[in-house]
Structure formats: structure tokens, C-alpha cells
């Protein structure tokens, strides 16, 4: 009996890099030395159990003729690609990354003063853009990799971390794609075989 590969149940792990960073091949782990920063200090172990949602949103106009009641033609007038998750990670590096890629300044502890990290809360007019990779399991190969690679995204959610007992504070995150002149919203790759 063959394995039902096409049924996949696992979260994606997200990585961000400056726009125009080369996407990793499926047999490479996205690495900080190549510019890729993992979303979540421990990757998907910092994502709420809702998981990661990839949404292909669109608006369609239909033509319904005077002589009939059913649509005879359709046009797409808008489309959006978004990737959503809840990030259970309030480390300064991750919080600042989500808050318009704010710069974190570290102040080392010294005699008579504590060490601390700081980043600005005002995001300003310019919206930070990133390249994005979302990695999960391939529906074609047991243990294979699946990868969304999106050339330009920005963080579109309005995080509202709640400090309360018994429930971890999290940052709502939504990466919305912008169309790249050359490759649109990018591609999805599904590994089908191991290297020979």
C-alpha cells in the first residue's frame, strides 16, 4: 500500500531576507550568513497552534447577460497573497523585525548599570520590504521540502501583544506580497526526489 503523500499536515517555517536575496535551493537550509533570518527564535516552535495560513485572495467580476440568469464570463480584478501566523516570541530581535524591521541597539552591562536592548516603536512612513521563504513538507516525497518563495512582502498586521496570566503574549503577523516586475508573487516549489 502506497503512502498518501498528498495529504500534508504540518506548519510552515518562515524566513525573511533583504529583497533580491537569492532564494535557497530545496536542499539548502536558509542561513543567516546568506541573509535569511528565521521568523521565531526557534522557528515554528514559536508559532501559535493555529499554524501558518497562506491565503490566495481574489476579486472576480462576472458578466450576467440580460437574456439569462447565470454568469457567462468572469474577470479577475484583484488578487492578493498573504501569509499569516501568531508569533509567540517577544525577543527584541523578533519584535523589532515584525515592527517594520526596526534597528535593535544593544547596551552592554557595565559597572553600576544593567545591560539592555532597545528599538524604536514609531514605524514611520516607509514600509520595510523583505523577500520571504515559507518551508514545509512536500506532498510529493516523504520527508521532502515544500517552499513558497515570494520576492517582495511587507508586514501588514497590527500586532497587539496582550500581557495576561496563563496565556503567552504573541504578535499577530501577516506578510502581504507585492508583485515583482519579473516574477510576480514568486513560486511554490515541491521536492519530488532526492539528489542522485
Amino acid at each position, binding site marked *: 500500500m502506497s503512502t498518501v503523500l498528498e495529504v500534508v499536515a504540518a506548519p510552515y517555517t518562515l524566513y525573511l531576507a533583504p529583497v533580491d536575496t537569492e532564494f535557497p535551493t530545496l536542499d539548502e537550509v536558509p542561513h543567516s550568513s546568506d541573509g535569511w533570518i528565521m521568523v521565531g527564535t526557534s522557528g515554528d516552535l514559536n508559532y501559535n497552534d493555529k499554524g501558518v495560513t497562506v491565503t490566495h485572495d481574489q476579486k472576480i467580476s462576472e458578466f450576467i447577460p440580460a437574456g439569462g440568469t447565470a454568469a457567462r464570463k468572469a474577470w479577475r480584478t484583484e488578487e492578493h497573497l498573504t501569509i499569516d501566523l501568531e508569533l509567540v516570541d517577544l525577543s527584541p*530581535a523578533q519584535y523589532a523585525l515584525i515592527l517594520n524591521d526596526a*534597528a*535593535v*541597539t*544593544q*547596551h552592554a552591562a*557595565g559597572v553600576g548599570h544593567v*545591560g539592555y536592548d532597545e528599538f524604536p516603536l514609531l514605524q514611520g512612513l516607509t514600509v520595510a520590504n523583505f523577500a520571504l521563504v515559507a518551508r514545509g513538507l512536500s506532498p510529493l516525497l516523504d520527508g521532502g521540502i515544500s517552499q513558497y518563495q515570494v520576492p517582495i512582502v511587507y508586514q501588514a498586521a497590527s500586532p497587539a501583544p496582550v500581557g495576561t496570566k496563563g496565556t503567552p503574549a504573541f504578535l499577530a503577523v501577516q506578510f502581504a506580497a507585492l508583485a515583482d516586475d519579473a516574477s510576480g508573487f514568486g513560486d511554490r516549489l515541491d521536492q519530488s526526489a532526492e539528489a542522485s
Partner: protein
Amino acid sequence: MKVVRYDGPGRSLHAFGKTLDRGGIDEFDDAEVASLLAQPAIHITVLDDLVEDEEFIPAADPGDAEPEAEDGTGRDHHKQEEEQ
């Protein structure tokens, strides 16, 4: 004194009156380096130690055009492939 490189995770580091951007290099005295190494949120590399490790590698002869191979065979693999 030791030469230290700041590796992050912040974009800059303020320490002992000095400011380093990520990837930046500066000198700190031994007690300051020990203090920085004891702060786990700050990632630094002490480059002095790396220099000491490399002191035993003989300097290349400027007249030697053939680069040394990483495996110590004295052969450049790229050049080998071209020859084949």
C-alpha cells in the same frame, strides 16, 4: 587588549564607551571582553584568538602563483579540473 567583532543580534552595540555596528571590529581590554562574553544576549567573536590559531600557517610566497589547496595537497582543485 583584544580585538572583538560584534555579531549581533542587534544592529549595533554600545559597550564601554564604544559603538560597533553589526560586523564591526574594535579593541577592548581583557576585563571588558570577559564581561561581554558573560552576557549571553550579546554575540561577539574575539578575533585575537583566531589570529593566534593562524600564526603557524606559513606566509605565501608572493612569487608562487599556484594557490594552496584546502586539503593540504598543494594543488588547486579548480586548476586540476581544468587540466582534466
